[in-house]
């Protein structure tokens, strides 16, 4: 673990958990709590992104005092893995590409989160998602499907915006700063 990574990863964790301040100001119904993880994948690659995801989930558990979030660690790790894969495929080289990758990651995240949310917690997780599932269940949707659809609706929007945000950030990096992170050029499809 280089000093550079030791300096970068906690900042990325801080970005993940500080996104709630930004989201609250804008009023968007998303979490954006993987922006830091996806950014690290784009800047330095897979393993640091996985570590960022792990640290974020553990830190969130400790800071919120709710160990329920630890159960969703596989979802964070899957997001890191797919983000790194997107970087290798220059997934951030256009808005359309970033959007497609965001939706794909959202689909995978929702599908992975569903068995955890339903089987382990009976569909009772984050308040907003649970409220959507309750409404769907009330109009006749089986609870399992209602939980999945609620998770899908939030995850698709969340990861779509996350990937678009990360592309914006990568495009906005000053040249001097971008030069320190060669992987960013690969993510944008501008490397040689």
């Amino acid at each position, binding site marked *: 673990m280089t000093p550079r990574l030791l300096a970068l990863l906690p*900042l990325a964790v*801080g970005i993940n958990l500080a996104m709630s301040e*930004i989201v609250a100001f804008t009023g*968007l119904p998303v979490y954006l709590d993987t922006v830091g993880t996806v950014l690290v994948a784009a800047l330095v690659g897979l393993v640091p992104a996985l570590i960022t995801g792990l640290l974020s989930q553990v830190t969130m558990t400790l800071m919120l*005092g709710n160990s329920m979030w630890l159960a969703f660690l596989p979802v964070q790790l899957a997001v890191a893995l797919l983000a790194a894969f997107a970087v290798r495929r220059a997934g951030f080289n256009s808005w359309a590409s970033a959007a497609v990758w965001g939706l794909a990651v959202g689909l995978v995240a929702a599908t992975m989160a569903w068995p955890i949310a339903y089987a382990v917690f*009976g*569909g009772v997780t984050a308040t907003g998602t649970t409220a959507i599932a309750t409404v769907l269940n009330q109009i006749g949707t089986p609870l399992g499907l209602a939980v999945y659809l609620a998770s899908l609706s939030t995850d698709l929007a969340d990861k779509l915006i996350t990937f678009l945000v990360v592309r914006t950030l990568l495009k906005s990096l000053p040249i001097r700063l971008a030069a320190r992170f060669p992987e960013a050029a690969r993510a944008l499809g501008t490397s040689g």
Partner: protein
Amino acid sequence: MIGYVQRDSILHRAHPTTILWLAILFTTAAFTQPATVVAFVASAGVALPFLARSQSVLKSGAVVLSPLLFFAVLLHGILGHDPERAVLLGSRLIILVMVFLTVVAVVHPGRLVDAITERGVRFSIAYLFAASLTAVPAMRERARLVVTAQRCRGLRVGRSAWAKLRALPPLLIPLVVSSLESVDARSVALAVRGAHGATRRTPIDPPADSAMQRLLRLLILMICMVLVWLRLTR
């Protein structure tokens, strides 16, 4: 967010790893035992803040648990007509929240880092953990400052989804770029302190441990294994 609450209690004086093992025991019971046992364990979990002399944990727990318990009762007890499942889920949620809120309240992050460093864990791993815990409040404060500064510069959030999305770049770019700018200086500071080295470090004042606590942790491990075995053979 709740954090460490300084008190003088039996839980505060315990070794940090003992507290973590206690939390693991409660969590194992929550996911391996039937509803009646889990409900009993949940009531023991609610008693932990009193052992920690931190009634603020109860208030924080009530705030976190209220919506979750509401939906657990509504979805499963009332709409699902399965009160036993409602009791199981509700008890499980109470354990997950109350036990970990207590852990956070009685275990100082610095003590935990000293404890795991003393066990031989590499400094870089301990540093990542501790630095993440301290980075979060600092980053939140920085985010608040960015929001205030941009609002002073005329940033307004419209009502439409597109207007809300357009507000993200002027908030996120300053936050992230300024954070990335600080990586170089931080990495130099870490390098001169040998943070990436493999040398085992010695904490100046490690948390006190005892044979009794080591025995207790071993006992907890054995109980967890029995609970899992009972679940698998049921």
